[in-house]
């Protein structure tokens, strides 16, 4: 496949960015989106140009590092997958693809497609946990938990913290991220004692950090 890429380039947090157009040729439809980016970067390095910086790590869709805004959607055209799981067979030969970083005030751009998401860590630090220390815990089967509750808790707990919800929202709201954590614990007896405080503390933190609503 031959493709035209319009990629956001920005030297660092303080400089102004702009779109730069690149061509990549002979891409296999079986390669992943990030492998296509690797091929572009390899060619840029050979030419002595600065490769496009982007966050990525596990490339299995679970670590939440990758974060590209592709043709106007976080993680591209497919539903419920990350950029690293997107494959080039979803595009057509000759397509033009526009690639941007997450755009949200609490996620400042650090370079090219890399943004700073420490705001998400701060939300969890504000109260997104159950206050237990290591050790001295009763047997794991001491409190039975209805299977349905455990499953609903797991549905919420599966959030990978990538920030796509914030990027997708015009107001850069982090409500989905917070509600996932709050409802994971709300469904479990262990999480009940602090449920109200947890909700208040994390919501106060998203306001403080400048997320929208």
């Amino acid at each position, binding site marked *: 496949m031959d493709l035209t890429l319009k990629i956001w380039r920005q030297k660092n947090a303080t400089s102004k960015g702009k779109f730069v157009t690149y061509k990549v040729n002979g891409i296999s439809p*079986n390669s992943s989106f990030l492998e296509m980016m690797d091929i572009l970067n390899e060619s840029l390095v*050979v030419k002595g140009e600065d490769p496009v910086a982007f966050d990525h790590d596990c490339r299995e869709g*679970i670590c939440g590092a990758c974060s590209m805004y592709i043709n106007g959607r976080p993680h591209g055209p497919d539903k419920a997958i990350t950029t690293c*799981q997107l494959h080039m067979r979803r595009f057509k030969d000759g397509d033009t693809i526009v690639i941007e970083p997450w755009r949200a005030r609490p996620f400042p751009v650090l370079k090219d497609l890399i943004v700073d998401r420490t705001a998400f*860590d701060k939300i969890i630090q504000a109260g997104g*946990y159950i206050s237990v220390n*290591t050790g001295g815990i009763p047997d*794991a089967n001491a409190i039975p938990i209805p*299977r349905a509750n455990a499953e609903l808790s797991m549905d919420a707990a599966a959030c990978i913290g990538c920030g796509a919800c914030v990027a997708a929202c015009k107001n850069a709201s982090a409500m989905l991220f917070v509600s996932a954590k709050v409802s994971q614990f709300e469904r479990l007896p262990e999480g009940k004692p602090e449920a109200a405080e947890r909700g208040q503390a994390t919501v106060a933190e998203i306001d403080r950090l400048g997320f929208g609503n």
Partner: protein
Amino acid sequence: MTELNSKIPKGQLAEKWTNYKAHTNLVNPANKRRLDVIVVGTGLAGASAAASLAELGFKVKNFCYQDSPRRAHSIAAQGGINAAKNYQNDGDSVYRLFYDTIKGGDYRAREANVYRLAEVSNAIIDQCVAQGVPFAREYGGLLDNRSFGGAQVSRTFYARGQTGQQLLLGAYSALSRQVKKGNVELYTRHEMLDVVLVEGRARGIIVRDMVTGAIERYAAHAVVLATGGYGNVFFLSTNAMGSNATAIWKAFKRGAFFGNPSFTQIHPTCIPVHGDFQSKLTLMSESLRNDGRIWVPKNKEDAEKIRQGKLQPTQIKEEDRDYYLERRYPAFGNLVPRDVASRAAKERCDAGYGVGDTGLAVYLDFSDAINRLGKNVIEARYGNLFQMYEKIVDENPYETPMMIYPAVHYTMGGLWVDYELMTTIPGLYAIGEANFSDHGANRLGASALMQGLADGYFVLPYTIQNYLSDQIRVPKFSTDLPEFKQTEEEAADRLRKLMEVKGKQTVDSFHKRLGHIMWEYVGMGRNEAGLKKAIVEIAKLREEFWKDVKITGGMNEINPELEKAGRVADFLELGELMARDALIRNESCGGHFREEYQTPEGEALRDDQNLMYVAAWEFTGDNTEPRLNKEALDYEFVEVKQRNYK
């Protein structure tokens, strides 16, 4: 040869850890506040250790190269975590978990460490449930279990196919709570470049701020490395792209011994390689072997037609399929340990029965399980894995069998540590995959999560106090000491040297070439001639790298090419040590298969007379060969046998 003191407590196996805890030195609460500990890495081992130490009152600094501690590669572990709860009433016990682990490791791990691991396994499950980890449950509300390779009981706890994610988020939440309380200072996007020794003790680290490029110094009374494994030396592996060996390799070069570097786990169920552009391999959880049956065509002609696309696997009749694991290992069948399953797959493919367009794949077939249990049950158990497979391969595994092939997944080797998890550098600890201690020559499934959390929650917080109790009069260290200045200059010089090569070939191209050498000669099957060749080739490649690597950008900015170059430079040294270690181990054990040493049936043939030891390698200089030290393994409590999964 240096005398290695493993500090194993005296007494009966089941009493060692209890006795140790009863008699070890502790630090009182007022003194804990005055003691600093650096933890490098925020995976299961690092995050659980940092959180637990901070809860006790120590002042902790925790570093990771990722943008958030929650992204450490433990997050990608799928299948589960073992514990000896015996909730299924199927005959499990601490002893049996210990025994399975020792046997699974092919009698190349320490009895005392492994017993302790099994002993604390139950507390891990309690801990995680209290943190709000939503493990799978039965309808009655109690915890569910599944089976894993190398065991005849169901002792694996799981949270769908995302167990690592849920356990890591549990440890991350405990860590976040301590950050809020001010007991942990978190340094994300910071990569450790070296460890600083003052008067022979580990007293700090040098790191690079990956955003500004600044080289920084941090001091502490003790340093804990929880930086994971080094499977990326093979370029293609199931590790995260950033997983690297730099922290443990620099520790090695400062005097920490490296234990069994050649012990690498090749995981049997990964998605096969599909092209030269490929950047990493994806694991399909071992839990799939609970319900999937592994086979290749019985007839070479059928395999040939499948490779050419003229025949579909679903067209092969039952009697024309070779379920080779069930055939060779009737007792364990598809649930043999990973090393056995991987070698069996390689054997069939090498013999010409492989499938897929490359011939380097075997089938993992769920049709029987779907017929028996229904699609819904299979979907509930493995839905996310099937979806991931379909995204990558573009085939529906509910309708056509999955294709799998072995891939590098885990490194049992790592920094040599004693019973207290301390390396040969006083005050420097290694926990989780970064150490060598618990898995011998092969790790069983669902035991990596167990070990990471055991070390971090329940072992290190005790053992480190035995060292720190002696340090309470030592004031906080200044990073102005000449040792810090000098180590920082050395780290910065190395980066400058890399930037100044200004050659023609990219970092990735060198990494790929190293990976080819490693996979070809230090991979699933090894032999003397190949290993000798690898040692020469790696040295040549290393020389070429330092003459011709091309790194764009500058030092004082985000520069992924420079980050990769530093890591690959270390892999180019570590790879050679792995080959040397594999060469002196004239036997086959666990994941280490030397083609010269096998039984007539093709099983691993150990040499317990001469090789029942841990190879602990010592750095002697950049231009001299490393020195081999040996820690003899005494099996006091189990009878050493040839592994038998038939």
